[in-house]
């Protein structure tokens, strides 16, 4: 009875957060097979790990998908030209392209948290409050980090002095 109830709850989480995880992973990785692998890993983690310190099931999925995709970026040594995701709309592709572009161009100047914040802010267009709720980082830190990222990006965009 108890096991059945647990399984039902997991199924409910899978049916709601699973497609959301796939959508976000597809946008970031631009590869559906890899995106399903990420979904698999996320839910395997849900089965295997203890209660996360913050957030609900959806928050855990957002953070886990972001982390796994960013790891894959690093592992694949993403240097390829950005291409709009075939399965998502123009707005999706634009936000994703900005996020990926920032991560690629700022690369060594970013730490893990910066990368996650870029994905949440630029691809997911989450507010600072929402990012703070999902990541467990204070709203102030979110704002400060994103401001720093914006300054770094602007500095990169400036032409070299002649």
């Amino acid at each position, binding site marked *: 009875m108890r096991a059945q109830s647990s399984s039902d709850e997991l199924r409910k989480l899978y049916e709601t957060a*699973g*497609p959301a995880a796939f959508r*976000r992973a597809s946008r970031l990785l631009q590869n559906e097979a890899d995106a399903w*692998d990420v979904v698999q890993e996320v839910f395997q983690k849900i089965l295997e790990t203890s209660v996360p310190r913050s957030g609900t099931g959806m928050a855990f999925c957002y953070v886990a998908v972001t982390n*796994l995709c960013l790891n894959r970026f690093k592992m694949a040594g993403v240097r390829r030209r950005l291409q709009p995701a075939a399965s998502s709309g123009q707005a999706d592709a634009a936000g994703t392209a900005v996020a990926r572009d920032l991560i690629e161009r700022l690369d060594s100047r970013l730490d893990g948290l910066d990368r996650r914040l870029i994905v949440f802010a630029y691809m997911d267009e989450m507010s600072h409050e929402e990012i703070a709720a999902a990541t467990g980082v204070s709203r102030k830190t979110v704002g400060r980090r994103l401001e720093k990222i914006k300054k770094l990006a602007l500095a990169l965009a400036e032409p070299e002095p002649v």
Partner: protein
Amino acid sequence: MNAQSHLSDWALDQLALEPDAAAREHLNTCARCSARSSDIAQQRRKAMESPRFEAVWSSLQRVPPRRRWWRFAFVPAFAGVAAASILWIRPARHDAIRPKGGYSVAVWTAHGRVDGSQPVRPGENVSLSVNTLGRKYALILGVDEAGAVAVVWPPGAGQSGETPAAPARPLAPAFKVTPGSLTLEAFFSDKPIPAQAAIESLRRRVAANGPGAQSGQSIPVLPFESGRASTVLEVR
């Protein structure tokens, strides 16, 4: 709601799990958010129609049951349940015995644990640690940028090695790193995994997908594999 007074995808996804009257009301009056919500719903249906959706679910059913924290994500939905039932499922009961985190492999230098985004300097001494969640054996393979696969730990062994009883203890020996990017794929098991079979499996996977993270669900062999984890070692 974000600064533009529209619902983010995050908020729309949350709505599927938790009812939010204010957000629902906003959806009824905002054409942009309503359209985005429909778009997300359509993408959700499409994902659920994919054969991989049920394939992933089936594979999850084969994962041995552990502490399933996600049930607590639904606690608000069950607020009306009797107090005795709530006590029965509350998470605090498990706090004392809960292991931290999931399967993992981590890289350490003299300066501490290496964050995935921090490169290591060439020539630095590096050691690895694993969280095996109680599994006795680990096999760590490395995939370089060219897609070559080799055993990283235990070095030179033909099969998985026994891991230290204390998870925080680094695996011996430490090794010096050379420039480049190395993806570390760790496989955890209760019985030793033959290194050659694992290498060949990973090679096939790399040949199909290119170098990079291969630790998704579809590595086909490793019959004794109980869990896996990966990380990247960036040396520059």
